[in-house]
């Protein structure tokens, strides 16, 4: 798994480190960023499959920026972490009808194993989709170019 397929935004180094380690044990590499601008750049540059937004310890402005950022994702699954009172505000208006392909909120207590299983689940469903889509495209191309 390419590291750029999963991006973690968190201001908490400890939670970032633990999440990365647990993901790594599940065979998933990840990139981490700790500033909103860096997160935006990393997402644009890498077009990841999953973005994990940890709202723990970030400012209200940063939370608003994250919420706005979420609305532009069409091909990216979003996992929001943090205090229930904050992550709940990401639910309905962010993930429904705004074009985000997939999203979920995991309120504290911080559960790295659950995060890893969610990421794994998302990636495997995406891989299945890609395989179906990829196989079709490749066979179409081969047929078209008479390579079979």
């Amino acid at each position, binding site marked *: 798994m390419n590291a750029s397929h999963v991006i973690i935004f968190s201001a908490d180094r400890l939670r970032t480190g*633990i999440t990365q380690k647990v993901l790594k044990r599940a065979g998933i590499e990840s990139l981490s960023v700790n500033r909103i601008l860096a997160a935006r750049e990393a997402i644009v540059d890498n077009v990841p499959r999953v973005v994990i937004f940890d709202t723990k310890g970030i400012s209200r402005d940063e939370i608003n920026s994250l919420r706005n950022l979420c609305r532009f994702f069409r091909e990216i699954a979003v996992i929001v972490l943090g205090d229930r009172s904050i992550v709940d505000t990401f639910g309905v208006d962010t993930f429904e009808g705004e074009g985000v392909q997939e999203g979920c909120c995991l309120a*504290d*207590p*911080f559960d790295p194993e659950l995060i890893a299983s969610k990421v794994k689940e998302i990636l495997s469903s995406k891989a299945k989709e890609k395989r179906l889509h990829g196989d079709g495209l*490749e066979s179409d191309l081969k047929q078209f*170019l008479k390579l079979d």
Partner: protein
Amino acid sequence: MAGKDDMKERMVELKKQESSDADAQKRKRSDDKRDEKLMAKAEEASQKPVVDTEKEAGSPAIRTEGPVGLDVGTSHIIVAQNEKNYINTVKQLNAFFTIPISKFAKSILAKNDVLFFEQDNLFYIIGNSSEDFANMFNTDTKRSIKKGILSADEQEGITVIQAIVQSVIRKPKQFGETLCFTIPGDPLEGTGSVVYHESIIKRFLGTMGYFPISINEGMAIVMSELSDDDYTGIGISMGGGMCNICLSYLSFPVITYSFQMAGDYIDSMVGISVGEHATKIRTIKEEELDLLKEPKDRIITALHIFYDNLIKNLLDSLQRVLSSTDKIPMISKPVPIVLSGGTAMPNGCKEMFAKALKNYKLPVEISSVILAEDPLNTTAKGALIMAMTEAQQG
């Protein structure tokens, strides 16, 4: 035709993508191998036995080769180095004693290989020798570190620590060698700056030619003893001046703090209660105390009482700290508690701790209470393992 060219280009792109993915996979495999090797080496070191050497008067300091672990404790300074089949530790008492300068005293000190330096018209006798002098003058040695951090009462504290460290290690063979030294956690109560303590020691070690990094004392215990538990558990260092506590999850120090009550507290409280010198109490504690046996005299009775008191206070603090934080991740299985340090050494301390623990409900389930294999050297060994890990990453 244009359509066919487009298709060909897309095929080429697909192939390129595949090859770039293959390169990335190859790189990842190589990184994984390096990480595995690194962890294997650290784990291998944690399985090695410790060979302990008391610093002998007149013996030269070690010229270090390879990463170094350094335990800067209230009562001892211990250096750990990785050898082929064992971990070598060298210990020096972290204490000093002053006498007025005189030519006669100087010649006596030099003749007897006593470690000392001159400052402000005084001879500073340092390390193991300072205890002999204190006994000779029927008084106590002075300490450069009080309750785990640089003593504000002793202005020469850092000079003394420098001299003691230089008596056990010299400049490294290779400039910039990684040295990991221990620091306490922030005190739960009381004052004292760990930041100042850490920075001062770091600066000094840097000037000696090392690349110094620090590790929390409790975390060092986890690094040394909990490799089989994925470095997840609670390390408690019960030292002279303080207890250091760390809850580690997969080698990340999630909670760290220090509790300024430990061996010295027991010695002085027992001393006050039975009207004896704390030094005498310490000797009895180290040589005779068995907490599993019924006490047979008033000093041993008092030692039982204050051990019980220390353990209860420590567990109260642990419950308070763990219950008031939102930092603890969900941990799927119970974790062990490892006790280490000189104060945890008397027979029965572990059992007393485990029995008292049954009366507490912690937010983390505890699987067992264990005593470190070599309680006096665990912290230095853990620091060495961290130094080895960091050196390889660097």
